[in-house]
């Protein structure tokens, strides 16, 4: 029988860590208890995007959007909403219209400005059911290219769409396909780069978890276009849910004869295997990824020859990022002109961003290229928590740079971001407020790349280490003004001489913070002061005797007994004992503690 209601429980990594598996099984139990299991369909979907409000449950046909759902809430949803048709108001993600009625979910601030092309099925279909993917025109794009288009025709369509690589570099996808197509060889490969390693980025993971068949279908189309019969998806082992759903999806596709020999009876062969990465950041670099896929050490290769000429097992290889593949079926089905109608002159389509840091609506957003940073932060992101001031946004992770507050009206696309010294990167977007020290941020990212450098080339292995030491001395107040200039020189040296993308972009966070927040560096060096109060070596806590009322709260809060004083008498901090944890600061009712 047709189910009259569908309950969708988010099964993305964010909501899963919020116990959505238990919520799912609780729904099963409660629905059974009420004798509703044949009337109501319960499924687990991919990410809805609004991770900050997870775990999320959506009930159709009304499209009711529940947030922060707990296992204890399930019975109420079943008994009230499913049985009696009364939505549980206290759990609604609600924004009201002027007349007081509830806004439709697509009209709320978080979703209104988004355009979901890549994430179209995430949070709508059950990613573990190939039938549900088929219902939303699944594998129709593949059918179309094989029955109606020539390989060159497919490539021309992708070229015409203006799609550029979503992994970070922004190279024309159509050109990449053309090069792989033009290389003459008996064997070619299609590879999907799902080794998403940037701190704070989870776009690819969410797509694989929410709509794995879309990536498989796109790889099949790529295989047809360049003349390859074998595909590999290189995905990190730290994404267990994504790996599991990919395995299920590949299994189902083989069962349906969608992967394998003579697909759909159309005479084309293609199959896909998974390769699990062990979590090295450098393996996201395409040549290192190819080495790792072959079972070798994950170190980059010299380019040229490019992978399109000599890639996996020395054969011509097409390698694209997960999100790039996510666009392909839609371009084939809706046409290149439709795709090119979105975005800016040189950056077409949409981009998925993982929004994190000091922002209210942490989560996954997909916006048309050319949307301003202000729209993302103030409207979709819901602004900065606790009324703090926006200071900068970091894009591109450890390879990118900072966009300062004065450039908040920058339209986000590949070229604009490069022009202001950052880069699109894979799509991590970390928001920072006035409490973040920019030197500390640069140090954080550089520490990451120093850790992840494979060590094959000297500029990256040693240069970044020395750069890190200089940054460290800035945060400790032991650097000189000459050191700042030396740092800048070293940055350019590393960029120009490193072997692969990791080294070539590693100094970017330092360079861009030096460019936009040089005054903060100078403050650390000259006045031995950290304006944001983050760098511990430069912070000292004092109690203003004029403000202190001697309530003893700070004394009780201090974990190392560094504060002394009698009741109703001004207290004193012993600097030699103080560990600068800031516990006293948070408790003080009179704001008498200064740093």
């Amino acid at each position, binding site marked *: 029988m047709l189910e009259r209601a569908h309950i969708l429980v988010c099964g993305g990594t964010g909501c899963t860590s919020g116990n959505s598996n238990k919520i799912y099984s609780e729904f099963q139990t409660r629905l059974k208890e009420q004798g509703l299991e044949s009337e109501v369909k319960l499924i687990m979907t991919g990410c809805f995007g609004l991770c900050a409000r997870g775990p999320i449950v959506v009930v159709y046909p009304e499209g009711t959007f529940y947030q922060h759902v707990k296992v204890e809430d399930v019975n109420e949803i079943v008994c009230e909403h499913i049985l009696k048709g009364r939505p549980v108001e206290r759990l609604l993600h609600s924004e009201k219209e002027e007349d007081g009625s509830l806004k439709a979910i697509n009209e709320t601030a978080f979703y209104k400005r988004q355009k979901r092309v890549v994430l179209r099925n995430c949070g709508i279909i059950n990613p573990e059911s190939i039938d549900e993917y088929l219902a939303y025109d699944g594998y*129709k794009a593949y059918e179309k290219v094989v029955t109606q288009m020539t390989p060159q025709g497919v490539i021309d369509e992708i070229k015409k769409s203006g799609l550029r690589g979503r992994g970070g570099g922004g190279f024309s996808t159509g050109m990449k396909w053309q090069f792989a197509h033009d290389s003459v060889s008996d064997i070619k490969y299609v590879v999907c780069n799902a080794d998403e390693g940037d701190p704070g980025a989870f776009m690819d993971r969410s797509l694989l978890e929410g709509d794995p068949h879309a990536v498989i279908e796109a790889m099949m189309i790529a295989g047809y276009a360049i003349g390859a019969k074998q595909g590999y998806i290189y995905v990190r082992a730290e994404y267990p849910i994504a790996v599991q759903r990919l395995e299920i999806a590949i299994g189902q596709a083989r069962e349906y004869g969608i992967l394998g020999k003579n697909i759909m009876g159309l005479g084309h062969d293609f199959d896909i295997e998974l390769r699990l990465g062990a979590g090295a950041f450098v393996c996201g670099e395409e040549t290192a990824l190819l080495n790792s896929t072959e079972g070798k050490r994950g170190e980059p290769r010299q380019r040229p020859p490019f992978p399109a000429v000599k890639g996996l097992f020395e054969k011509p290889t097409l390698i694209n990022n997960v999100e790039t593949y996510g666009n392909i079926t839609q371009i084939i089905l809706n046409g290149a002109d439709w795709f090119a109608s979105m975005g800016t002159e040189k950056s077409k389509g949409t981009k998925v961003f993982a929004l994190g840091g000091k922002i209210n609506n942490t989560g996954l957003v997909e916006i048309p290229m050319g949307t301003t940073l202000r729209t993302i932060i103030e409207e979709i992101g819901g602004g900065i928590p606790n009324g703090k001031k926006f200071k900068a946004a970091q894009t591109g992770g450890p390879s990118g740079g900072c966009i300062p507050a004065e450039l908040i009206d920058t339209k986000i696309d590949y070229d604009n971001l490069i022009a202001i010294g950052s880069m699109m990167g894979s799509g991590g977007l970390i928001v920072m407020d006035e409490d973040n020290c920019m030197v500390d941020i640069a140090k954080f990212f550089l520490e990451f790349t120093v850790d992840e450098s494979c060590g094959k080339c000297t500029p990256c292995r040693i240069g970044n280490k020395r750069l890190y030491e200089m940054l460290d001395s800035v945060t400790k107040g032991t650097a000189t003004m000459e050191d700042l200039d030396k740092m800048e020189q070293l940055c350019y040296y590393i960029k120009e001489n490193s072997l692969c993308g990791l080294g070539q972009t590693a100094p970017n966070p330092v360079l861009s913070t030096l460019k936009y927040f040089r005054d903060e560096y100078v403050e650390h060096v000259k006045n031995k002061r950290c304006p944001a109060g983050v760098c511990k070596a430069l912070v000292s806590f004092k109690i203003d005797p004029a403000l202190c009322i001697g309530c003893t709260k700070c004394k009780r809060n201090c974990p190392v007994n560094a504060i002394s004083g009698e009741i109703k008498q001004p207290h004193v901090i012993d600097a030699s004992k103080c560990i600068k944890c800031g516990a006293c600061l948070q408790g003080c009712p009179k704001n008498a503690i200064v740093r």
Partner: protein
Amino acid sequence: MKTLAELQAIRDRMKSQMASRGTDADDIRIVVGMATCGIAAGARPVLNAIVEEVENRKLTNVKVTQTGCIGMCKLEPLVDVIMPGSEKVTYVHVTPEKARRIIASHVVNGNVVTEYTVDGEKA
């Protein structure tokens, strides 16, 4: 191996099953009163009959939802039919048989079954 026709059959079958996900302003809405009063008066078999009928007739543009008590408990089971662009029609004392006729006559062919409405019952 699934042929192209078999894949298309799966698409069609799943499409009608998944029609309730996603909301479209042009959809016809059938709302069944499912508060305690409605359930006690027999709203559940009515709801099931409606869902069954919608499926059998492949009415993918029809959304069946439920609502709470609207205050006319003695007239339950109540069923609202909301066609886009026209006034809501409320049927009272609905049974599974009446529900099937409402779908055939009103939802499919656009003819309101006047004798099942509040005014119709009085007359």
